[in-house]
């Protein structure tokens, strides 16, 4: 780890200001960033911790929308997002207890790891990512591996999840990291069914639109029986070939529909 300054602002405005410093880096729960720093793969001049900003921590419900502060740890979401059970279950199965008590939803979504769980929930739910500057629809937010619509210094202050009628997340764990080797989040919303896949694609989280169409007319696992997922663009690594991941997308989608 290289030396850096550390700031822990108490308000969003202070955080935005601190992040204006040269080579500043926002710090959520640090579950990706701290190991990266330890390996000397990054050298920010200042880390700006978002954990001290009270207005960014917590879960609340407004009408049919569940709103989660950007600095809310996974363990808190698991415990307090009962109004959206599939989301609470997803949060409760991220990593291990240490990860869940440090890692935050804003950090995970901003990092956009292609195997992270939260992006699937955000995209399938048609959630809105709220920053200090604007509101971004999920469909516009995720833009590829570790790439999002966020501008430099922009902070995810909260994420607004419309609560779907039915939803479920199925994760098949990579045996070592326990990230999603492939994960599928299915949400049956008023506007139709949305299916988001994480862990599988070289382009990061994506929507499986063929399945969405089939399931929108018939929300049953059998509705996707005739579909096939192409392995084109799927990730191939030590833990699974592209064909295996493509296969898992369909298996997990079916299981999510059955369990929703």
């Amino acid at each position: 780890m290289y030396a850096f300054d550390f700031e822990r602002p108490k308000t969003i405005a202070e955080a935005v200001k601190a992040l204006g410093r040269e080579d500043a880096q926002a710090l959520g729960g640090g579950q990706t960033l701290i190991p990266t720093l330890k390996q000397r793969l990054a050298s920010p001049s200042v880390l700006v911790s978002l954990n001290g900003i009270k207005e960014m921590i917590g879960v609340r419900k407004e009408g049919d929308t569940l709103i989660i502060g950007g600095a809310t740890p996974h363990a808190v979401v698991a415990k307090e997002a009962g109004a959206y059970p599939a989301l609470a279950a997803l949060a409760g199965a991220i990593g291990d207890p240490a990860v869940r008590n440090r890692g935050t939803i804003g950090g995970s979504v901003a990092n956009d790891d292609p195997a992270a769980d939260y992006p699937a929930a955000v995209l399938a739910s048609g959630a809105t990512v709220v920053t200090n500057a604007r509101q971004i629809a999920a469909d516009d937010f995720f833009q590829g591996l570790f790439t999002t619509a966020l501008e430099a210094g922009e902070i995810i202050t909260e994420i607004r999840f419309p609560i779907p009628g039915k939803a479920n997340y199925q994760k098949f764990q990579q045996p070592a990291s326990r990230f999603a080797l492939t994960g599928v989040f299915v949400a049956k919303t008023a506007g139709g069914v949305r299916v988001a896949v994480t862990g599988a694609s070289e382009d990061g989280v994506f929507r499986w639109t063929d399945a969405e169409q089939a399931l929108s007319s018939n929300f049953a696992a059998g509705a996707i029986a005739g579909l096939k997922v192409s392995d084109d663009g799927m990730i191939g690594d030590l833990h699974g070939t592209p064909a295996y991941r493509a296969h898992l997308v369909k298996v997990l989608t079916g299981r999510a529909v059955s369990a929703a």
Partner: protein
Amino acid sequence: MPKDHGIGASSKRREDIRFLTGQGVYTDDLNLHGQAYAVIVRSTVAHGKIKSINTSNAAGMPGVLAVFTGEDFKDVGGNPAGWLINSRDGTPMREPKRPVLAHGKVRHVGDAYAAVVAETHAQAKDAAEQLAADTEIKDLPAIVDMAAAVADASNRVHDEIPDNLCFDWGWIEDNRAKVDEAIRNAPHVTTLELINNRLVPNAMEPRASIGEYFPGTGDYKLTTTSQNPHLTRLLVAAFVMGIPENKLTVVAPDVGGGFGSKIYHYGEEALVLAAAKKLKRPVRWTAERTESFLSDAHGRDHVTKIELACEKDGTFIAFRTETLANVGAYLSNFSTATPTFLHGTLMAGPYKVPNVYVNVKTVFTNTAPVDAYRGAGRPEATFSLERVVDKMCRELNLDPFEVRRKNFITTDMFPYTTPVGLPYDTGNYHATLDKAMEIANVSGFEKRRAASAAKGKLRGMGLSTWIEACGIAPSHLVGVLGSRVGLYDAATVRVNATGNISVMVGAHSHGQGHETVFAQIVADKLGIPESSVEIVHGDTSKIPFGMGSYGSRSLAVCGVAMTKAIDKIVAKGKKIAAHMLEAAEEDISFEDGKFAVAGTDKAKTFGEIAFSAYVPHNYPLETLEPGLEETAFYDPNNFTYPAGAYICEVDVDPDTGKVDILSFVCADDFGNIMNPMIVDGQVHGGVGQGIGQALLENTTYDENGQLLTGSFMDYAMPRAEDVPFYQVDYSCQTPCTHNPLGVKGCGEAGAIGSPPAVVNAVIDALHRGGHTQVKHIDMPVSPSRVWSAIQG
């Protein structure tokens, strides 16, 4: 009624109080006045020629105290191999020098070629980074694949070894023609090619070393993560550094797991001593986890073809194997013994097979050194045997339980010497198989299978009947086999004046629980409370010259040395008691902590005798020395041969290929049991590691020799959710015939016996599910591999 203390009691592990409350003292916990920090500079390429190292920039950086390169150590000795193995043609193995720091060439990713010592760790890291930038290394083609390594004489890990072959070993070479003939004429031959996957030991505590030098006396002290401080002292002092053994103290304090990886001497230990002498300050080094992955000795890594010849009824006629065994870039201390005498000699298993021949070619590659890892050679032998037997049963449609029964050595045949040379003293393999089948409720399997099928799962059952040779080792035998050390152990029992006891042992506890079990034995033998006994280990300035802990030897070798020292204590106590009680020595009995005159009520307690030995007012000083302290060395005259039967049941999810272990039954024969709870723990841990090997763990180098599984993000360790509630039984006991405790080793059993049980269960599940095209899946049997196998 279970015993509540002494031999056979499940006494609670006294060491756990400090381990579980964070009060253990590990090497990295020690902070010494004036200490400096070493950081090792490691190769990022698998194979390269060091063109130049410019140390001046790094040396001038803030806080930097010293910079070392291979040049600084080119005149000291190499880290030696502990066993000399001869090839089939009688020529000795090739032994390239293993330097403290690489000189001239780097030979694997992680190979240490320089070191920086600085006032702080961060300063040393900065300077190490600079040094790496100022080093020019010319890439050479990486030698990773073993078959390619021996085929291509032009590309060499060591320039002086043309075919990258360390040795080509045949066991037993004289039997080769006879075995070939038997296989040629056999009614059935089953052939299986398999890989025993390379494993990274991953002890919880990474390696760490602190060197100290005391200019006033010229003494050195090395505090280090070792399983055998005396052996490390011998290697560092006599072979590498050239300093007298009596000027070096080696201390291995609390050590957080070893599994073999901390048997060996590593270059960092010599480095911190040399640096401490140069700087006249303590110099410390602690591996980062990445360094552990790259530079700890790995385990296994065999590619094997095994043939089983048999009658049509499954009666074994012959086993023949050809193995390529990876030793990596350098010979680690036991690396040549592991694929040979800890592997080939076990290739008869628990079976009365008349013909066995083993060929092992040991190969240098541009990968980390490979050496003994929990089980060491015996898991490789067991996996090959138990997988090929399982395959044969499928080919001939025979019951795997009956085939084992038919071929087991029977109890009336002991002592029994196998065609691969081991004299098994005792055992009862039918008994452990029967016990395992009873606990596993084999007859109820079909009902359980139907229940799994109703949930869409494929259920399978796998069997492994294993044997191993441990309690390492009879020196006379291993000397003949090429060992360059003796493998006895030693203990000193010091009775203090107030009657409590300090026992200094050569064995080293790095998780095993010696402090508890050894105290139980002493307390039992002397009739005193366990709390009166303290076990001292891990410090060469305190303990006699013992060989440490590995090869499931602590109890069977050091424990026996300890009991022999106790026997001497009792014998001397009788002399003292005879004097005090005015009786003849032969009339004195010792029982329940009392020396008594037979047939009378005259007696002295153990405490009274101890006091008298140190305050000898009424004492036979003319004929007997005062004091009560005895040392014994013990060299076993044979290995011990624990054996057992393991039955594993799995569910396979045919949609994802995921394997869930539903039950795992172990029926083991460890001879007499000293502490059942600790035996449970040893078996649980061993089976956990075996399940890790079978389902999860893999060490993958790419074609350039880069380690792809260099962190826990890609190297899959078993976790609690991956293992079932084990059912462990050791009621079938055939006590070892050649040690007075009647004990066999239990530390490695689980890791030896379990992998084939798991893989056999997966293959069984797939066959019962109709996927009969699947003959074998290499470990780890990961979801993607199982799914691919199902696809055909």
